[in-house]
Structure formats: C-alpha cells, structure tokens
C-alpha cells in the first residue's frame, strides 16, 4: 500500500504570520522520518497539517497520492501520538486501545482480538483491564502506541512522545519504537527537538528553523555535510570560525581568517572566491599535535573537563574566540592545564565551509 506523504508546496499562514514557508517534501512509504528543530520552528504545525487539525493556507498534503484538503482529522488514514500521550483517563487500557475501533463500529469480539494482539506487540499482555492511572510512564507510552496502531493507520504521527520520560527510559523507547516501526512497516513521522532521538531512529531527518526546512538528509549526511550554518550548529556540537574565501581547489576552500591565518575545509557548491563564509570544525575532529597535512590553530587551554570516557577542553585562540575540543580520555595528560599552549590541528576534509558569515 502506498502510504507516502507529500507536502505539496504547502504554506501555512496565521494572519500576518507565516508559520510554514513554502515547502515541498515527499516522505516515502514505510519511512521513519523526523522533523527536528527548536521549539517554535513550525514542526508541530507540519504535524497538524498532516493529521488534519489544520489545513494549509496554500498547497496540499497528499497521503498515498490522495489530496487531503478538507478531509478532517477523523477521516484521514493517520493517527497521532501526543506529547502528553492523551490517554483517556476514565477508560481502561483495553478500552483506550479499542476506542478507535469502537467508533468505527467494529464488533466487540474483533476489538478484543485486536487489543490482545497489540498488547502483545508492546509487551504488555494481560494489562487490558488495568486503569490508565495504574501504569508507569513507559507503560503509558506503549499503550499510547498500541492505541494509535489499533486503527491500522497508514501513517503514524508522533509529537515528541518521549519527552516526558526519564533519560534511561527514553533511550530504551527509541529502540522499541524503531523495532515497532520495522515490524509494522507503517510510515512514521516523528517530531522532536532532541537530535539524539532524530538521529538514532530516523531514516531521514528534516531540520527546521523559523518555518523553513533547512536540510533533508539521512542522519550521517546531516552530521557530516550540513548544508546551512543553522544545521551545522544545531545538529551536534560545532565550532564556527568566520573568514573570507580566497581560493577554491578540488572541493577544498581556503579562508582568510584574520589573525588565525589561512584555514581550509571542504566546500559545497554556491560558494565563490571573495565570499564571506564560516568554517565549521567539530570538537572531536581536533587533535592536540599536528600530523601530516593538518592545519593548526595555536590556542591556550581555558578549561579541562574530564567526563569519564572522554574529555572536553575549551581553548582560546589568538582571535579571542573560544573553541571546544573533545578527546578520548586516554589522551589525558598532566600537561593539560589552564593556560597551557596547544596547537589544535584538524584535517581540511573533516571541516566544512558554509557560505555567509553572518549566520553564526
């Protein structure tokens, strides 16, 4: 079955405010797709457009190729898991799961079968007669999933469903969600401000900022080849150094970074000699000693934090900018103290140059 979701040139305006700028995006059938962005970036608005709680001002949402304009939420082949889960407090667990079938007029016996099967899927067999208030946070989470799956949606919409859980449970539920998605083969559309969730579970991620999709890519590409300064600094940690492009050579750009001298990094299309640009280097790509073909930034250690399996450093450059560095903890030595000079080195192919210095 085609359960793709196509945001066909949608625009969402609330009065004078444009919540979603013109967006054209196709989410494939059976894909685990995430929208990642800070709060207020418009990701919830997108979810509401797909679920049918909102209709876009322009354009249309197509599910399985069908235009959805004017189709209300209760008639769409989607179901949603809410941030606060929204389990019905006055119903039992089984009644919650069966609710969607009940309103469709499915017989009692069929409903019972379905809820038993779903309780098994979420590993909560025999909990059907419990009250919602008797469940733990993680169990509530699973019931919410079971309830949403009971109506056999083509697309499951998840609105930050893990945000209420504690860290351990959250990490566990990530694996479980991914597993359920694999078993059911339904398209999952996931909304989160937590990049860890987006990167670990998703096939593809759309990073959003201020009502605009910045980049759509699989997690590894997103991390390695951010297209915009926003993505570079929002996804993972990053150090940005501003400069002016002086040379372009085989996909490597040379930047004049003032007192820091000339630094280099990988460059994508759309950057020309003479442009302002920002060089992004991830903390884990720094080394403390220069090796072959490495570029160095002379700095002084400002702060050292030992975090167990790794250690983080803050260093001040001659340009008075602060860089953060992450090293494996086996690299710790007694010489790493405040004020000690270090030659921070990196490979040009590990750094990314993105046009426009005013973003950061």
């Amino acid at each position, binding site marked *: 079955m085609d359960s793709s979701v196509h945001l066909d040139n949608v625009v969402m305006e609330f009065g004078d405010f444009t919540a979603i700028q013109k967006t054209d995006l196709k989410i494939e059938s059976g894909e685990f797709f995430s929208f990642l962005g800070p709060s207020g970036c418009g990701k919830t608005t997108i979810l509401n457009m797909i*679920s049918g*709680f909102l209709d876009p001002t322009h354009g249309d949402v197509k599910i399985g190729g069908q235009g959805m304009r004017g189709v*209300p*939420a*209760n*008639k769409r082949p*989607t*179901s*949603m898991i*809410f*941030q*606060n889960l*929204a*389990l*019905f*407090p*006055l119903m039992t667990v089984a009644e919650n799961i069966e*609710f*969607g079938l009940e*309103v*469709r007029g499915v017989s009692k016996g069929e409903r019972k079968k379905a809820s038993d099967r779903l309780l098994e899927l979420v590993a909560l067999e025999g909990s059907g007669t419990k009250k919602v208030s008797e469940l733990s946070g993680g169990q509530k989470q699973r019931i919410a999933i079971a*309830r*949403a799956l*009971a*109506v056999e949606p083509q697309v499951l*919409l998840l609105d930050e469903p893990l945000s209420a859980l504690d860290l351990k449970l959250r990490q566990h539920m990530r694996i479980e969600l991914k597993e359920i998605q694999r078993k059911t083969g339904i398209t999952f559309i996931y909304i989160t401000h937590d990049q860890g969730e987006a990167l670990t579970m998703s096939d593809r991620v759309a990073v959003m900022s201020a009502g605009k999709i910045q980049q759509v890519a699989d997690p590894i590409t997103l991390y390695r080849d951010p297209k915009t300064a926003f993505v570079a600094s929002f996804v993972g940690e990053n150090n940005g150094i501003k400069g002016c492009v002086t040379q372009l050579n085989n996909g490597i750009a040379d930047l004049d970074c003032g007192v820091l001298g000339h630094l280099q990094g990988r460059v994508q299309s759309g950057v020309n000699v003479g442009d302002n640009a920002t060089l992004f280097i991830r903390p884990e790509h720094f080394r403390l000693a220069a090796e072959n073909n490495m570029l160095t930034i002379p700095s002084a250690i400002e702060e050292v934090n030992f975090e167990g399996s790794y250690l983080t450093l803050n260093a001040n450059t001659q340009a008075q900018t602060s860089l953060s560095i992450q090293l494996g903890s086996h690299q710790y030595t007694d010489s790493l103290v405040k004020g000690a000079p270090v030659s921070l080195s990196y490979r040009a192919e590990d750094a990314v140059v993105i046009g426009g210095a005013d973003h950061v």
Partner: protein
Amino acid sequence: MKSETILRWSVRFYIGVFFLYLFTPLIIMGLATFNDSRFPTVSPWKGFTLKWFSALAEDDAMWHALWISVIVAVGVLVVAVPIGICCALFLSTFQGRGKTFLYSLMMSPLLTPGVIVGISTLIFWKGLSVSGGVMLTVIAQTTFIAAYVMLMVLARLQRFDRTLENAALSLGATQWQAFRRILLPYLKPAIISAAGIAFLQSFENYNTTLFVKGYDTTLTVYIASKVRTGLTPAVNALGLVMISITVILAIVYEVKRRREQSIHS
C-alpha cells in the same frame, strides 16, 4: 509571646461564639417542635410531645405544596442543567471579541435580586398571555439557576485537557463521539453536583417564586405564609424534617466530594 497567646485564645473564643450563633437558631427551632405549646417556642417548656408531627402529616395543603415544589424543581433541573452545560461549553470553546461581555451577561442573573427576576418574567409572559403558575415558576427559577450550573460545569471544564478530544478525533471518532465518549463522562461528576444544587436552589427559592407562582404555592412559600398566619409548631416539625433531610444530603454530598477530590489530587 504573651500577646500572641491572648490573640490565639480570643480567636478561639470568637470561633466558638460564631458557631454558637450559627447553630443555636436551628437547634432551638428543632427543640420547639417537641414543646407541647400552641405557639412555637422553647420558653416556657410545657412538656414533650410528638403531636405536631401528626398535625403536619394531616396537613393536606402542605402535601400539595410539596408536590408543586417537586414538580417545579424537576422542571428546573430538566431545563437549567442543559442550558448551563451549553453555556459552559460555549465559554470554554469560544475565544475572541465579546467573550467577556457574554460572560458578564451570563453571570448577570446571579447579581440581580431574585424579586426582579420574578417581576421581569411575570411581565414578559403576561405579554404572551401566560400568567403565574408552575410553568412561569420553572422559567423564572431557570433564569438564575442555569447560571449556577454554568459556573459549576465551567470550573471542571477548565481543567479538561483538550488534547484528549484531538486524540479521539485522530483515532477516527466524530466530534459527537468525542463529546459523548470523552468530554461528557469527564463532566459527569460536575453535572450531577450541579443538578443537585439546581434542585435544592429551586426547592428553597422564595423571592423569585413569590412573584410568578400564581395559585401554585410551593412548599417554601407555604412555610412563609404559615409563619405569618396560623403559626403553630407544625411549621417547626416541617422545618425539622426538611433540615434533617438537607443535612443528611449535605453531609453525603460533601463527604463524596471530598473523597473524589482526594482521589484526584
């Protein structure tokens, strides 16, 4: 520290006097029922009797008035509760210009003296050639009792999580199903309480009823007329019975309400 102690004891004394003030009248009224005196009093005490209860039981006019009161109260319940619920639903849904005005308008019957509610109803329906009686009493009482119902339902509605409705819709329920299966069960305790209050308010009402009752005397109006003409301790007997019933109901209601509150908090 010493002045604190004095303060504390004077507060306690005040509280004691206050509750004495609150309950003495009711107790004296109750006691007067059993006094074998032609006139309701406790001084002088002329001996214990139960005859006023049997006098009450034989009072046909009283039984008729009680019947009228019940009919009116049920009528008010049937009309005022749905209106109050509708107003609460409206206020919890509608956002925009005019909401404060409408809210004030809906509250206004509670801030209007009861006699005026009665008078305006009487005049309005006179124009439609309807004169006082059970029907006008129901209408006049509904005017302000609906506002009580609205406040009680609204109080609960304001704690309702509207994503529950969205969840129901997202699972394929129609708006009616979401209302029927999710919102209404949630509101049920408040609706039951409001219905109880509406019934009681109607039963007790005097100021409004007096103007619209026509020839249909309710129990409260009957008691008032008895106090002014032909007062005997039979009125006390009636009062004692009514107080006993209301006190029992009040305690049951309060205990139930507290229990529910402690479960939810």
